[in-house]
């Protein structure tokens, strides 16, 4: 029974990835297959299940989905980014709140990785589409979402890039989320433009990303990657970091109005995220796509 499910999903994800791989890196925009240490394998679609592959998925799922494992910072990050997205999309009086505030909201999670944020948003009612250019990650996300019995409202995952995805989903989403992604892309201008195209007029776009400051260079890259080893080496390149001003500029050139920029801060000792009033390290930005084209 279980093996059958596994097999079906395996086949499914493989087919998906095969379709998507045609698009992969066509424009060379996205390279966010970063944080995990696993090597990419080429899976041959076939009728037998490769035990090694299965083990690998189990390992990867553990790697991403253990809330106190290597990806714990991403899990605790949900404690602030879920409210950030939620409150950016709906404002609800205290006594009228319900457990699914994002019901009927279509959200695109770009660079969804293992689906940590996608599932959290789906849990509060959103119709989530998670895309990632890395097929392995999409597999992990798909697998976890299927096995999560507490999650009724499942996200849709697709291995693709935003530029390709948007060709079918123009002006479609109520919310577009790019959490810890823009610092990994090559052509940020095209990336931002594509994100906004996917958004309905009046919809909101959310970014979370490190700022480009000496502090992030020293603590975010040198200390975190080389001294503390809490982030795999080579995850971040300083030159790709974008400042709030630069991002605002890109957004406003694309007919968006930046509504809020909060500083964010991660406390390594407590594994806790907070909004802070300085943006030296990281920030979260929310913008609205305006109705009328300039």
């Amino acid at each position, binding site marked *: 029974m279980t093996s059958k499910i596994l097999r079906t999903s395996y086949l499914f994800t493989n087919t998906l990835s095969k379709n998507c791989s045609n698009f992969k890196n066509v424009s060379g925009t996205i390279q966010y297959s970063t944080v995990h240490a696993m090597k990419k394998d080429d899976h041959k679609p076939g009728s037998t299940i490769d035990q090694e592959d299965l083990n690998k998925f189990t390992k990867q799922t553990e790697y991403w989905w253990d809330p106190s494992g290597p990806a714990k910072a991403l899990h605790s990050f949900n404690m602030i980014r879920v409210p950030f997205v939620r409150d950016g999309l709906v404002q609800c009086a205290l006594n009228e709140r319900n457990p699914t505030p994002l019901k009927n909201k279509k959200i695109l999670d770009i660079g969804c990785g293992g689906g940590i944020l996608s599932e959290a948003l789906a849990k509060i009612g959103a119709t989530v589409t998670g895309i990632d250019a890395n097929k392995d990650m999409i597999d992990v996300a798909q697998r976890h979402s299927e096995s999560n*019995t507490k999650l009724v409202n499942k996200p849709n995952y697709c291995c693709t890039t935003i530029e390709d995805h948007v060709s079918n989903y123009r002006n479609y989403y109520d919310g577009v989320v790019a959490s810890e992604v823009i610092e990994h892309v090559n052509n940020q201008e095209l990336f931002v433009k594509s994100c906004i195209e996917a958004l309905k007029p009046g919809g909101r776009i959310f970014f979370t990303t490190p700022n480009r400051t000496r502090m992030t260079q020293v603590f975010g890259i040198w200390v975190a990657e080389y001294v503390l080893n809490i982030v795999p080496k080579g995850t971040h390149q300083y030159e790709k970091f974008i400042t709030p001003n630069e991002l605002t500029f890109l957004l406003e050139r694309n007919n968006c109005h930046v509504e809020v920029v909060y500083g964010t801060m991660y406390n390594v000792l407590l594994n806790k995220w907070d909004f802070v009033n300085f943006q030296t390290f990281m920030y979260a930005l929310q913008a609205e796509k305006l109705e009328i084209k300039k």
Partner: protein
Amino acid sequence: MLLRKSVHRLFATTLKESRTAHACRALSSINEDNVREKYDVIIAGGGMVGCTLACAMGKNSLLSNLKVLLLEGSPNQTFELKPEYSNRVVALNQNTKSLMNSLKVWRHVENARLQPVRHMQVWDASSDALISFNSSEISDDDLAYIVENDLLLHAVNTELMSSDIRNVKIVYGAKIAEYQLAKSTKESSTDNLVKMSNGDVYACQLLIGADGANSAVRKAMGVQYLSWNYDQMGVVATLHLAEPIENNTAWQRWLPTGPVALLPLDSTRSSLVWSTWQDKAKELLKLPDELFVDALNDALWKQYPRSSSVDACMSWLGSWLKKAGLPDGEARQLPPSIMSIAPNSRAAFPLGFGHSTRYVAPGVALVGDAAHRVHPLAGQGVNLGFGDVKDLTTFLADAIYTGCEITHHSWLQRYESSRQRHNVPTQIAVDALHRLYTLDLPPVVLARSLGLQLTNALHPVKAAVDALHRLYTLDLPPVVLARSLGLQLTNALHPVKAAVDALHRLYTLDLPPVVLARSLGLQLTNALHPVKAAVDALHRLYTLDLPPVVLARSLGLQLTNALHPVKAAVDALHRLYTLDLPPVVLARSLGLQLTNALHPVKAAVDALHRLYTLDLPPVVLARSLGLQLTNALHPVKAAVDALHRLYTLDLPPVVLARSLGLQLTNALHPVKVHYPSSTR
């Protein structure tokens, strides 16, 4: 949507079942076949706090989808408003009123009966010191409301039974046999199981202990419970006044034996809470009604023996205040005379202090007296509990609104720290007040009287302080009193205050360096404030489960010792007193000097322990005068202690040590030379 939910539930249930089954098999004490029903939340204990929590969960739009079971041990009592007031009443503050208003409970209380308190007068029997509060000085609102316990409970239950609430089931006469608490696993946790004495088993995600000061849930959690008895009892009764008055003043007189308080009920009746030593309380219960009334009037009016120097100082202060045009406390109101007491209304309740170092565990939370117990002198007890209810429902609702489980540790921990930040300082302040006022030494009486009088005189200051306090916590006047007192004199007198302040500061600041310091533990704290360090060490030792502490713990004994001086000291003490090897006995007899040399940390703990367990007048004095003096006295006491030990023990090794001669001791320790020669 509905279908989706039920499907969800079905899945969740089967998943939970399989896990529970596993846990049960291991222990085999609770059999999963008996699991009769599964709930999201089980509230153990349907007192005022437990029922209010159930009501709040039923009314919160985010929590009203949760299946809640309330288990109450006593049978369902039908309530009727009798002409005579119940002897159990509570003073409720504005926070409680607004909570009850939001739950639509307050209207039921208002429709029945309650007495607003608009003035409060507190005065010291050992001097003329007095402080008074009026509603208008603090805000236009009433200071407090006096409500009968059973009426309040009835009002809450009326709402709980109303058609607004559909998700709460109540079982009265519930006999709980045993709890089997959840074990947290990586991604989720197992269920809590509640076994009833008839064999039924209920399962739940979140178990809430609202079962009072003797909480069985707390015991099942296995948390540290810091508690002590005051050796006092609160004698309660319903009083009939000699004549009808506009009865909206709460009176409290501090006798050397404890506070006696009159809480207004209506124009001719008041409720009594008389805290006094246990034996005295038992005597009071046995007195015939007329003699009891006499004793009470005595307690309210009698002149207690005074220290003439205190009186002289107070009258000097009075004249000085008069010259400055400030109130000198002469214009005092007089408390009402008591004519009789309502028949059979006398009862007494033991009073104690209790602090559960953890309010939460995986899938479990404590509220109300289960988590904290205070002396009723400031009328705080149940108000703190209602504060717990408000915060817990807010955090649980927030967890759901963010898409997390109600048992998510992040929110439970937020509940715990938010409540402990508020409750612990309040509890310690109340405890400090109690200690301050049960002392009858002239310097203490003088200090507190001067403080009280000055505080009363400095109305603008008081008002400002009150405003500030209200702004931040919106609290009950007695605590305002405690705090105003605190500002003026507790500071000077009571080291606990310093600790409270430090604790409060420590836990309310969220600046990264403070948070870091807090997490890194004692090292920094130590450097900042020695008194705080001691209290903090205790607190921290038992409350924190922060990663750095856990890390430190796992880094091994060395570090643990460094971080947890209390434990080390206790260990050392234990070792010292359980070994009977002659050299150890000798060391023991040599007293603290040697021990000190062996373990410097011990000294601190020992001082604390000694400070709070000895009741010799000089120690009590030292205690109140602060640690400075104690520190100064400490070496002397240690030496006396060692001598005492040396000469009262008749164990062979001790005798041997003794007969090895004072010479050796003298040779070993120059300090001791002094004592044998002086006692000879």
